[in-house]
């Protein structure tokens, strides 16, 4: 049994599935269930396939746990051991809760990415069907070549979809409605939740910690709207509130933003003044709010609102441009590590200089003949100067060869006769099928074959230069086979067509 080699983390007996008693196993990488007395698993899901787990409400007679898969299917386990059913389920749920996120992140991201790519690009999807489904090449190989762009810093042409920002007022869109009996109703949509999570990562963290483990989703959001955190004007008085921590985290985030300082020296208020007056000089009165003790509650609540607004706006802004930032960071990292960063710095005047120059420019006083040019931004200047250098030595053609070749061609040309009489009649459509004469389905088929062959050739060429043994294997081993397969496929198609024709 395959599962024996795996580490079994939890075994729960007396678990029913489809009205059949059995045992539930939680292993390192999958969850499995086997009917009682049998030696095999009838249900087995790798964790990475599971989207989420759901549990039955506490009051229900049946204690159940439902697993929802990415495919949309779901499996329900009924914990039937009367005395310990609840406890069993808790144990299973808790373990799952720990395990799922680990797999989720990795698997999901990739899976989603692949799914998205296939959905967005019908040609790719067809190619996938032609090559992978018909098992010309394996799925991994197919993706290895495609997803490469994702992991590299330069985005693949497929993933440059612009990210949608967040509305600044998403919190305002949650209008509370009175439900008639002294309560409030908040309507949340997935968009709003997504916005909240993106803007306030602290809340997202709380959510994944607490839901559905200690709170249901509904409870979580109820608490959120009751919290001091949501109502920014209320001062946090240190009550036991799961969101009080969030507020602190936000504060920390804001502080770190503030401490990071600003890049543009023209807006840096700290270094604006050249020489500040020493303490004790000047007529400006010391502000009463410098000491916290004589701050009134109202004043500090006002200050809290202001702080929150600044933070909120900064976060919304950051959420909109987060992706760019990451890539920019990466780029700067790579450029600083490759030792070549100096020259890109050299060509780019520092921010300060640029800003100063911008500030003193009077474009309408200048003659317009000057064309604005964009500075060439070179990450590696030597690459620009030399161009790609072949890794392998090539056989150079000598000039004598070239002369011979030219002579040869000239000779051939001189003796060329067009043989115009042998040109076929215009309406003979068996030769060189013009597009309008070929039915579209055949055209489509041919196109698919062509694209598939092209893809294979791409694989083929991407193996060069052959500098690893893996590539060599790939080349000599199955790639050749694949090309063969593709060719035979084409051949089959051709013969089939010919057959149909006759």
């Amino acid at each position, binding site marked *: 049994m395959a599962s024996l080699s795996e580490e079994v983390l939890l075994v729960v007996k007396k678990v029913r599935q489809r009205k059949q008693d059995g045992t539930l196993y939680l292993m390192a990488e999958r969850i499995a269930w086997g009917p009682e007395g049998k030696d095999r698993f009838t249900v087995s899901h790798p964790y990475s396939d599971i989207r989420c787990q759901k549990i039955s409400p506490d009051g229900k007679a049946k204690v159940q746990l439902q697993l929802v898969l990415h495919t949309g299917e779901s499996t329900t386990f009924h914990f039937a051991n009367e005395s310990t059913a609840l406890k069993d389920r808790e144990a299973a749920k808790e373990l799952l809760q720990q395990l799922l996120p680990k797999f989720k992140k990795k698997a999901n991201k990739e899976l989603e990415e692949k799914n998205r790519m296939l959905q967005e690009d019908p040609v790719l999807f067809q190619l996938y069907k032609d090559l992978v489904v018909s098992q010309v090449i394996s799925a991994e190989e197919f993706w290895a070549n495609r997803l490469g762009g994702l992991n590299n810093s330069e985005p693949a042409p497929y993933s440059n979809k612009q990210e949608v*920002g967040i*509305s*600044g*007022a998403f*919190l*305002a869109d949650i209008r509370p409605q009175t439900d008639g009996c002294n309560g409030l109703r908040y309507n949340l949509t997935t968009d709003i939740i997504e916005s909240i999570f993106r803007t306030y990562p602290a809340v997202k963290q709380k959510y994944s910690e607490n839901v559905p483990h200690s709170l249901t989703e509904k409870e979580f959001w109820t608490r959120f709207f009751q919290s001091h955190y949501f109502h*920014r*004007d209320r001062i946090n008085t240190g009550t036991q509130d799961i969101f009080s921590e969030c507020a602190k985290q936000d504060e920390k985030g*804001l502080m770190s933003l*503030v*401490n990071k*300082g*600003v*890049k*543009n*020296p*023209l*807006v*840096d*208020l*700290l*270094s*604006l*003044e*050249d*020489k500040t*007056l*020493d*303490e*004790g*000089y*000047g*007529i400006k*009165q*010391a*502000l*009463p*709010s410098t000491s916290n003790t004589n701050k009134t509650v109202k*004043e500090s609540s*006002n*200050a809290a*609102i*202001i*702080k929150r*607004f*600044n933070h909120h*706006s900064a976060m919304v*802004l950051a959420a*909109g*441009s987060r992706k760019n930032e990451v890539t920019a960071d990466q780029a700067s990292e790579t450029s600083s590590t490759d030792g070549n960063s100096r020259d890109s710095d050299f060509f780019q005047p520092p921010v300060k200089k640029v800003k*100063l120059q911008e*500030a*003193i420019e*009077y*474009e*309408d*006083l*200048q*003659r*317009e003949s000057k064309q604005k040019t964009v500075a060439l931004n070179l990450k590696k200047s030597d690459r620009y100067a030399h161009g790609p250098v072949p890794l392998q030595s090539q056989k150079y053609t000598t000039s004598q060869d070239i002369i011979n070749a030219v002579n040869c061609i000239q000779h051939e040309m001189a003796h060329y006769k067009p043989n115009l009489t042998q040109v076929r009649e215009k309406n003979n459509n068996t030769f060189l099928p013009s597009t309008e004469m070929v039915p579209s389905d055949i055209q489509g088929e041919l196109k698919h074959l062509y694209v598939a062959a092209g893809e294979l050739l791409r694989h083929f060429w991407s193996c060069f230069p052959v500098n690893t043994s893996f590539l060599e294997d790939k080349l000599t081993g199955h790639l050749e086979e694949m090309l063969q397969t593709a060719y035979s496929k084409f051949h089959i198609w051709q013969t089939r067509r010919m057959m149909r024709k006759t």
Partner: protein
Amino acid sequence: MKLNIEGLLVYFPYDYIYPEQYSYMLELKRTLDAKGHGVLEMPSGTGKTISLLSLIVAYQKAFPLDVTKLIYCSRTVPEIEKVVEELRKLMEFYAKETGEVNNFLALALSSRKNLCIHPEVSSLRFGKEVDGKCHSLTASYIRAQRHSNPDQPVCRFYEEFDAVGRQVPLPAGIYNLDDLKDFGRRKGWCPYYLARYSILHANIVVYSYHYLLDPKIADLVSKELAKKSVVVFDEAHNIDNVCIDSMSVNITRRTLDRCQSNVETLQHTIQKIKDTDAAKLREEYRRLVEGLKEANVARETDVYLANPVLPDEILQEAVPGSIRTAEHFLGFLRRFLEYLKSRLRVHHVVQESAPQFLKDIFEKVCIDRKPLRFCAERLQSLLRTLEIADIADFSAVTLISNFATLVSTYSLGFTIIIEPFDDRTPTIANPVLHFSCMDPSIAIKPVFQRFQSVVITSGTLSPLDIYPKILDFRPVTMASFTMTLARTCLCPLIVGRGNDQVALSSKFETREDFAVIRNYGNLLLEMSAIVPDGIVAFFTSYVYMENIVASWYEQGILENIQRNKLIFIETQDAAETSMALEKYQEACENGRGAILLSVARGKVSEGIDFVHHFGRAVIMFGVPYVYTQSRILKARLEYLRDQFQIRENDFLTFDAMRHAAQCVGRAIRGKTDYGLMIFADKRYARADKRGKLPRWIQEHISDGSLNLTVDETVQLSKHFLRQMAQPFRQVKPPDRRRVSLRVTSPRLLSLCRRTSWVCLC
């Protein structure tokens, strides 16, 4: 292009010139010719700085003996750097046109914080720390100690500069702060002292106001600058406040406590020195008998407080006998301290003049006027004798002795106010002694006396005649220039009513009025929906802004605004505000659009420009009057009335309007720029307020836009924005640069003014 300004050949580094720049140069030339002072107002964004530099440099080249130096004072570090960059552009143009090698030396000077290259010292964050640390490495006795003790750390950059830097003058060129640092690093010289030394022979010096106006620093840095210099105060609309600030002192109980401990430390040190090195004290005594002047041989690195009092005759005298020995002086300080403490124990507000204070102190503790006058000098000498390394610790005692010197020197122009508590928190005892200067002319007087031409200029100096009055000088030229525009790119609107006809005003009585706040909110909301990119809104004070933001939040107005734009708010913390500002610009940059809520008189309103899309509209909520209940202000108003015949209301309105003009002027920084200026207070419509706005704004306020409702404002704004959003095409004349055209007749000039620029070659 080359210009002929009344016979002076001026090189101007652009191909075209605005007519107002030409007139500005004319006025400036007349000022220099007359060797007098001038007040010139020209809108921001019309190239004030470059016209000024072009003319003065040309003047310097033409009459090298009449004007030897240009001292250009600006307010903020970025401004200083901008000026130097413009100068660099000008000099490059000179070099290109004339083919001569530039022989001008121009440099910027800033505090150590911006110039230090010592790896440890420059990593400190605050200016004061940098100064203190630098001092502890470069003071003369520290360096003297090094001879006996080689382990004593010193600054190698200063040592290197001291050894060789003085012999070779800084080569001619334009040195911005970064250039100085580069040069310093290359040579291994301290850029700060190099710059301070080089300003003596530089042709152009650019630094901040304080180096000339704050007597404590001016005495150290700018003392030996040549008399035949031209001094320019740019952005001078607040110059009176700078003057006043530099001469005023506040003393709290905490100051006195710290001072007490300072005195104790001094006592200990004196005791120690007496045991080990009594000769040193005797030597000091001898020096004090001989007079202070000799004692104060130029030791530039000893940055003990320089005497805040400028009259030189005091320095010629010997220090009075009663404070000549160190112990006696300490006893004297103790008595003075005790007296101040007793004064702070009051239960009601006391206001008195300097002579009254002196009389009282003589009666109570028998302290005479004369030793008080020498207090600052005497302390300086003592600190130097005792070889105190970290003078930052002794800031309290220097403050007190400074106060002593000031109070005994000036009988007029100062007032002493002792408040037992803050008016807003009457239950908490927090006594403060304000020694406040009421007469800005005291600090600036030496500047006017010493230098042959002083030019005060800014984008907003209206009404012009008030500055000569409050600064007490007689200008030879006073001129206000307007902005010639190819298209009306500014649109001042006065919103007096809400849609419900409620009068909008920030005046005290209606300040808390719900309806006014709601209407203000509506205005901002409506504007946020129609104005592209950035909107800046200014409030009259920080407290007012906090209250309004809170009630807008309660009313849900802010949430609605957030649907259109992101909101950023200035806070009292400068670092936080900087962050908010940068994010604001980022939001304008990426097209999301943002609103910045800010405060008039705050740092943002004074130092940050909102060019182009960073500020398409400025909304001024209310009239930014200063807090009128303050006793210091009342005393100052009284003084202005008695001494200069300026009515209180006139001054208050003038002050409010110059700040309002500063705020709204932030949005227009050039002729290609455009922006709305919305004055949201019905009081702006009155002639006395409107008349105090700069001419270039006033001109564009039509009678129809004096008392608008919010809806009307939105309509007018929409129209304006739609017009301005059209691509701005200039119909430039064919290249006429070779055609020699000199505009001489005023009629022709006024004709030219109607177009945006004119070619004068």
